[in-house]
């Protein structure tokens, strides 16, 4: 990672592009791709390109905590090298313990230095949940708990992007019984703008798109769970191409029956489409090759808080979430008993009343 000069003369993305010999129209083409990705109106491309060019080339610190590196895998997937690599060229990834050669103390050294240099300017990308039980002792590296590291790096960040459902809402770490007390970034950091990009993993284009839109326009429009509406504004169900089968009441009953082969709705097989907000149905995965429903499996709702605990992935969204252990028989017996008691009581009262006034 090259050490860069003082903050003030950090080059703008426009300058970086010119140096890299990227033609203006080629840059416009990328921005057109970006606005389409974020479902912005096509005519906004020029304005978007202008702002992006003027933005300073940011420093990015990528902090991995209790994570499985799935998100990083997804982030660096090079299906569309032109778009992703371009974006990687614009951001200077100053710290990522997986990608960088340096390790151990040297890696820490580089990180602290990058932080110091770009204090208040850099973007902090957090990957993985932060264990909080025993005040963070479940997650320690470089003799600092993840909580401390997060606290420390967050302080100087311009904004924090929590990548993956673990960083956003605790993900698999926070799933019942949540032994490590794992939480998402927003649960710990209250004084900094946090942008959640949930998913297990999130779609590559959604992550890069969020970064680029932050560079161009700052913190994008977020929903109640701090997710960019550009990507998490609609439910999968709303944009699903199998929706017409749902409306006509045609459902696949099993994974290989006639319904499944006809591409009917997977509601009965536990699809979480109706309650999950993400862009899988439009941007799709693996460079637009397909997405879970298109491959015949229901959406498992990986971009929603606590999606691991919302019942079996193969039970419908309206399925009951309790296990019947004979309570209803007990209730029935109790009902009959109380009924009988009430009946006897009123019969006794009746006899008393009747005899008194014979």
């Amino acid at each position, binding site marked *: 990672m090259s050490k860069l000069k003082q903050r003030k003369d950090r080059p703008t993305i426009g300058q970086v592009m010119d140096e890299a010999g990227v033609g203006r129209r080629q840059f416009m083409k990328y921005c057109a791709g970006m606005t389409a990705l974020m479902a912005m109106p096509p005519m906004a491309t020029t304005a978007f390109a202008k702002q992006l060019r003027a933005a300073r080339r940011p420093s990015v610190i990528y902090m991995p905590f209790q994570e499985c590196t799935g998100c990083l895998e997804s982030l660096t997937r090079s299906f569309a090298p032109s778009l992703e690599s371009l974006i990687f060229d614009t951001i200077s990834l100053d710290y990522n313990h997986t990608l960088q050669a340096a390790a151990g103390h040297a890696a820490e050294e580089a990180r602290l230095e990058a932080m110091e240099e770009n204090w208040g300017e850099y973007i902090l990308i957090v990957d993985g949940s932060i264990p909080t039980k025993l005040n963070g002792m479940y997650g320690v590296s470089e003799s600092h708990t993840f909580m401390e590291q997060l606290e420390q790096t967050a302080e100087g960040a311009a904004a924090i992007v929590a990548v993956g459902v673990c960083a956003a809402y605790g993900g698999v770490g926070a799933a019942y019984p949540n032994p490590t007390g794992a939480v998402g970034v927003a649960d710990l950091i209250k004084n900094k703008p946090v942008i959640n990009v949930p998913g297990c993993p999130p779609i590559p284009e959604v992550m890069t798109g969020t970064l680029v839109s932050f560079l161009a326009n700052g913190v994008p429009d977020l929903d*109640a769970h701090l997710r960019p509406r550009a990507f998490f504004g609609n*439910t999968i*169900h*709303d944009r699903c191409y199998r929706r017409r089968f*749902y*409306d*006509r*009441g045609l*459902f696949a*009953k099993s994974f290989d029956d006639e319904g499944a082969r006809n591409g009917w709705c997977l*509601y*009965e097989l536990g699809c979480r489409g*109706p*309650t999950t*907000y993400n862009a899988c149905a439009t941007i799709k995965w693996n460079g637009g090759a397909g997405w879970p429903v298109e491959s015949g499996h229901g959406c498992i709702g990986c971009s929603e*808080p*606590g999606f691991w*605990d*919302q*019942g079996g992935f193969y*039970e*419908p*969204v*309206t*399925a*009951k*979430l*309790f296990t*019947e252990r004979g*309570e*209803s028989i007990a*209730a*029935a017996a*109790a*009902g*009959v008993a*109380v*009924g*009988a008691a*009430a*009946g*006897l009581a*009123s*019969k006794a009262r*009746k006899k008393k009343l009747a005899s008194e006034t014979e």
Partner: protein
Amino acid sequence: MSILEFSRGPMLHFALLVFVFGVLWRLVAVLMLGFRKRYSEERNSNDKALMVGGATCGLRSWPHKEFIGRTAFGEAVGYGYHIGLFTIVLLGGPHVIFWQNLFGFSAPWWPTLPGGLITVVSVLTVILMLIATIRRYMHRPLRQISNFDDYFTLAILYAIMISGLWAVLGGPGRYEYILAAHIISFNLLLIWFPFGKLMHAFYIFPARFVNGYLHAKKGAAT
């Protein structure tokens, strides 16, 4: 645990238990009051009376020609929204899945109507319910005998219908909150069921049967 999980988890379970407990409590309490022996010389045999009792269960749903002139509108609206409710609950796609899941059986033979059609039926049902509610308030005898139970039960029904339509038509707001509202209002219906007029679902056919039976014993009109 999100509100949706809560509504279809512990709350649904609690509601079902209250429903089972309450319904049996009320039915048994009434039946415990005992049936007295009848001594009068019967005009029709027991079998004929049983048959007439059975017939009354169905026939009483259709007004006699002497009454239809006055009750046609009221009954059309009333039975109208009941038919609507049954269609939605028994033939609506998501509901069919819910029942099968709730009672733990799978019934591929269970027919369903297209979602769009159910939405149309739902809107019609709500309109009929509105007419019934307004009529309950405007029609003098109805207003006189109506009490809290009548209006509260209607309120719960409205909550269910509106949240249901809201979820299907994708109104503003997050889907899972609307769906949670739908399930919660259904839970409310289950909890209120034994303590209000909804019990008529259990009372209606035995009541008609006994009425038809006793009248037939005397050869009286049914």
